[in-house]
């Protein structure tokens, strides 16, 4: 009997629950939310094996996998691992991701996998990096850029991240460095219709997650698209309530290195509503963890380390409507 749980039913969680069901209905799908009305609404939309359950019941029911969305993911991940479940954490918060990676020993002790940062960015971005790197013999530089936000929690995280420095890997100098947030403006070309966006350094988790998969890369950096108002107000509280859900978001990865004697650079991207894509990535990661299709079966890591069959992962995502893209005639 297969049993999955989705905890936190905001913009990402509701999509994750639907995708967990669509990817192969489990015998039981437990839905947990702080709002009983929201949980009931999502349960009604999914039907079938879905039922609303409090967090304590999720833990006592020994689920195969728990997908965490919303707040408090490190604490819940530790408890779910102890309960014997694989855990997929969709958070994009750097501090949460650092804490989740620190649960590696607990995950290994439980013999379960803790997938960290399984969303749109990080998440899909990490899979794209791995896929692009597959065309190279050696990877020298990885650059990730993202644009757009999902639900309100994601918008708050986006706002805060623009005011705080994040880690970058510079293997030719000091290793991990933290350049100022808002520096390093770079014009990044995302898939249409996003097009060109000015992107800046921010508190982003991709370098941390990607470095674990490509420790020999010389430079790993991430940028986030921001407007002048975003940058001006980044260190202040949000001036207005975040929208219920952002519109179109994009990710773009550029992986440079060597293929035989040649220096090559490969660019991949994706465009979607971030919450929709994040839900699909988290749900697929949960199914792959249960099916034993990830590169490891215990421990804690991001998708750049865990998804070796990137083509298979991207194919399944494309079937769910989340499609990756490559630029035509420019290193794609």
């Amino acid at each position, binding site marked *: 009997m297969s049993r999955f749980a989705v905890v936190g039913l905001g913009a990402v969680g509701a999509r994750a629950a639907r995708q967990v069901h669509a990817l192969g209905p489990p015998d039981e799908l437990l839905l947990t939310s702080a709002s009983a009305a929201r949980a009931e609404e999502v349960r009604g939309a999914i039907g079938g094996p879905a039922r609303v359950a409090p967090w304590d019941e999720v833990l006592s029911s020994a689920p195969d996998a728990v997908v965490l969305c919303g707040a408090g993911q490190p604490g819940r991940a530790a408890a779910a691992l102890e309960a014997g479940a694989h855990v997929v954490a969709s958070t994009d918060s750097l501090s949460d991701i650092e804490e989740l990676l620190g649960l590696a020993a607990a995950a290994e002790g439980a013999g379960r996998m803790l997938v960290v940062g399984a969303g749109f960015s990080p998440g899909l971005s990490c899979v794209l990096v791995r896929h692009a790197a597959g065309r190279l013999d050696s990877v020298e530089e990885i650059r990730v850029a993202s644009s757009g936000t999902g639900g309100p929690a994601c918008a708050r995280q986006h706002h805060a991240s623009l005011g705080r420095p994040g880690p970058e890997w510079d293997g030719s100098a000091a290793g991990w460095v933290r350049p100022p947030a808002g520096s390093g403006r770079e014009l990044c070309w995302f898939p249409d219709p996003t097009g060109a966006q000015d992107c800046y350094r921010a508190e982003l988790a991709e370098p941390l997650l990607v470095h674990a998969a490509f420790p020999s890369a010389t430079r790993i950096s991430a940028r986030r698209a921001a407007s002048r108002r975003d940058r001006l107000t980044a260190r202040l509280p949000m001036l207005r309530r975040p929208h219920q859900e952002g519109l179109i978001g994009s990710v773009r990865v550029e992986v440079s290195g060597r293929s035989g004697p040649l220096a090559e650079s490969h660019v991949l991207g994706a465009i979607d509503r971030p919450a929709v894509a994040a839900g699909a990535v988290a749900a697929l990661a949960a199914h792959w963890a249960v099916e034993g299709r990830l590169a490891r079966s215990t421990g804690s890591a991001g998708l750049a380390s865990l998804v070796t069959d990137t083509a*298979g992962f991207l194919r399944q995502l494309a079937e769910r409507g989340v499609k*990756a*893209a490559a630029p035509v005639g*420019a290193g794609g």
Partner: protein
Amino acid sequence: MALGVAGAIASALRLVVRQAPPPPTAGGWRELSGPDLR
């Protein structure tokens, strides 16, 4: 320092028009399919 401040003010007032480089993706984007995903 003074040059930097002057540059920032000029940029904010849009006195300096930044010339965007030509898009490296001028040919557009294509969805990954077939051989890309094998």
